[in-house]
């Protein structure tokens, strides 16, 4: 699985961070199954997956708070599997920010520099720089509890950026913010990522966030990597059922293959070359067009319409009771509930999922 879409812009250059065969057991349960993953210098890679998929454990292993059962971790080509957490050149932005409540914003940000015994003048200079970068110069002498959630988030980020770690890990850092703030922070993180050229590993369970932010997404499920690739690759060419169903909305048809057709319970659908027994066909809702019931590959009845401004989502019930999601762009007349419709699509929109 990993080989097919291991997109690497700096092919030939050794990766910034390399996870090789890392596995983690807690007693008899395996939470990570021998993972391999390369993170390239300067990229923003998202670990995406449902809760319990092992993404946080992987993050903890990378930052050194948890030791793997087996496997090695390389940062800049050095084996750092057993290096204590405080000696790793890694920055972590915690989910709850973990700002020290008794220290001011400035003192919080100066903390990592003091631990590295930098001269006071250098510390002042760098703290001021990074405060500027996150637009928080005016809050330098406040305590964290006097800041808003978004501001605390930016302080946590600044505390990480200030000592220029080789890799920054972010554990669902935007989870506690409301939607508006989350979106503006995403833009902020993208800007800072571009300006600093930092290597960032970002953990989230929110697929929209992953699609919006990432250079690449590492999709995880049940302690294994389901797929690694750019957001486009993962959305447009899901490697498996899990990818297809987790990212975006999808319609998957199953059935026996005979004579170039997939015989589903609701009718025959043209198959694609290379399909094997057990494979399904996937069509994204936006690729389905509505036609006359007699003309489509399949036909059904509209059972629900959900208006969402830019588009409208329709639920179409097929004969077998299976429900199909269709997305109609704004500007088309919306098929009324109860009307019979036919479903059709371009063969290029079809993907095989197994």
């Amino acid at each position, binding site marked *: 699985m990993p080989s097919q879409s291991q997109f690497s812009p700096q092919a030939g250059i050794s990766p910034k961070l390399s996870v090789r065969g890392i596995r983690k057991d807690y007693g008899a349960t395996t939470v990570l199954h021998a993972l391999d993953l390369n993170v390239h210098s300067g990229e923003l890679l998202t670990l995406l997956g449902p*809760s*319990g998929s092992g993404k*946080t*454990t992987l993050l*903890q292993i990378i*930052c*050194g*708070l*948890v*030791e793997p059962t087996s496997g090695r971790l390389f940062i800049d080509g050095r084996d750092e599997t057993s290096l*204590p*957490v*405080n*000696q*790793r050149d*890694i*920055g*972590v932005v*915690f*989910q*709850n920010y*973990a700002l*020290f*409540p*008794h220290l001011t914003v400035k003192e919080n940000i100066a*903390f*990592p520099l003091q*631990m*590295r015994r930098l001269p006071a003048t250098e510390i002042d200079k760098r703290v001021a720089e990074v405060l500027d970068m996150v637009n928080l110069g005016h809050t330098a002498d406040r305590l964290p509890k006097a800041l808003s959630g978004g501001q605390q988030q930016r302080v946590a980020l600044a*505390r990480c950026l200030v*000592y220029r770690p080789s890799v920054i890990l972010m*554990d*669902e850092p935007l*989870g506690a913010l409301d939607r508006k703030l989350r979106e503006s922070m995403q833009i902020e993180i993208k800007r800072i990522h571009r300006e600093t050229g930092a290597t960032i590993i970002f953990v989230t*369970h929110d697929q929209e966030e992953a699609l919006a932010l990432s250079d690449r997404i590492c999709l995880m499920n049940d302690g294994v990597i389901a797929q690694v690739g750019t957001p486009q690759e993962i959305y447009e060419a899901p490697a498996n059922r899990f990818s297809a169903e987790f990212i975006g909305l999808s319609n998957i048809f199953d059935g026996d293959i005979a004579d170039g057709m997939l015989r589903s319970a609701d009718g025959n659908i043209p198959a694609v070359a290379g399909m094997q027994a057990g494979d399904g066909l996937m069509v994204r809702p936006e690729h389905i067009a509505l036609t006359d019931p007699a003309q489509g590959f399949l036909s059904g009845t509209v059972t629900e319409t959900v208006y969402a401004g830019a588009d409208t989502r329709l639920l179409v019930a097929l004969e077998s009771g299976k429900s199909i999601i269709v997305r109609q762009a704004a500007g088309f007349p919306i098929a009324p509930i109860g009307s019979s419709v036919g479903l059709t699509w371009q063969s290029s929109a079809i993907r095989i999922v197994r």
Partner: protein
Amino acid sequence: MAEWQSPSRRRFKLDPLWLAGPGIFYLVLLLIVPAAGLMFLSFRDSSGSLSFETYRQMFGAGIYVQVLINTFSIAMQTTIACLLVGYPLAYWLAKMPEKRRRLVMWLVLLPFWMSALLKNFAWMVLLSRRGVLSQILTGMGIGGPVDLLYGRGVVVFAMAHTMLPLAALTMLPTLLSIDLGLARAAKTLGASGGQAFWRIVFPLSMPGVAAAGLLVFISSLGFFITPALLGSPRETVIGQLLITQVQQLLNWQLAGAIAVMLLVVTLAVCLVYDRAFGISAVSGERSDRRSTGLFARIGTVVIASAARVTDILAGVLDVVPGLRRRGWLLDAFCVLVMAMLLVPVLIFLPMAFGSSSFLEFPPRGYSLRWFETYWNSSNWTGATMRSFGIAIVSALLASAMGGIAAFGVARSKSRIGNVAFLLFMLPMIIPNIVIAVALFYLFAQIGLIATDAGIALGHTLTALPVVFVIILTTFKNYDWRLDQAAATLGATRMGTVRKVTWPIVKGSVVAAFLFGFLHSFEELTIALFVGGGVRQTLPKQMWDDVLLQVSPTLAAASVIILAVVTVVFVAAERARPR
């Protein structure tokens, strides 16, 4: 989202619980071993062979049986009084906006930390033949000088007064944890105010009520100050009996038997409580068990009828003009209760500055003569200095042992952590008088009776739970991810403790130390036994003087204790982080 686990760097890591080791060792050595020895002794006769002679004596002699009955019935009456008065008070506090509650809490916490001896001495002065109340009644022409002292009524009243802050403060966390929106929801569903309270709020507050009842009852069992000062011989309780039997007659067998009995009752009460609510409810945690069976059915009937009665009462009151809005009734009641808590204590101030040669209120002239008497008496100043010294040493020892143990228990993932928790709570659960007798028994064998060290060791033991709980709460609420964050930012283990952990928990460790100090500074029972009448602490000196003769010097000493307690209490409350 999965929780961040603590670093699991080494494979074979010692569970942090080992940090509780020194404290546990101390508890076993000074509490469990001597208490067990004492019990063992009660099953022996004078020749050392197994016998139940002591118990036959105890239950055979009418005087002892009467004392047992007195003790239990007084404890029961005190508990009921505390719950009846304490519940409205706690409810009133819980309903307040948080800012105001913080202010009002001071007025409940201060009497909580004020020594029982002081409070009872105050009632002794106020209610005596020449006391204020008697004067007022005489002035109003109601009879001659009345003596309100020396009876069951005044004993239960003063004891309930002593324990009331404990009851209210124990119920408060449970009441605070009840979502007040629930009562509002009940009203939108058609419940009257009374129905909403009885059917929703009251059942949810039961664990707190039971915890308060448990603590007050257990504390009352070993309590002897009120019956000794305000009661007649007919109100003699176990505590007084133990003092004579042990101090004067050295009757260890009987002391052991009484201790056994108190322990058995205490444990039985705790067990019943645990079955009904789960022992963790004492610390305000809610159990997820739903009780069924007989108790639950009786409870439902009681609640239903209480709600009905309240509705009828409300219907009647609605007719009375001025009583349609009744919120002020609770306010008035609680203000009155708080005044009752504070006034007896504050009464000392003017009396201590009086010029007449006996205690009177209001005083006729003002002078500092009684403070001079206090100051020039080597008995009083010596006792004061000794109390300071002992309090500092015991608070230090208790903070050190309790502090690291609290850290260990908070960080431990082991199940033994709960056992360690209960062990550290033991000195709070076992009646004080039993601890004092057990310590006396142990120290008598190793020559620590009548030494300052002996008293300090004893106070350390009883201060442990206070200090332990305060620091444990802090560590339990501490966000350990801050330590992880410090580590990822490059701090070493020592650096993390020095620059992150310690500055954050420092306040509550200081507070714990100060509360430990207060505990020792006001402790009487252990000082009474272990001091052996030679090493007088301040409370012990007061106790002796109160029994001998009530003089204005006592009022001066009370004012000094009051001042020290207030200053230390305020300092501790301020140090404690919110």
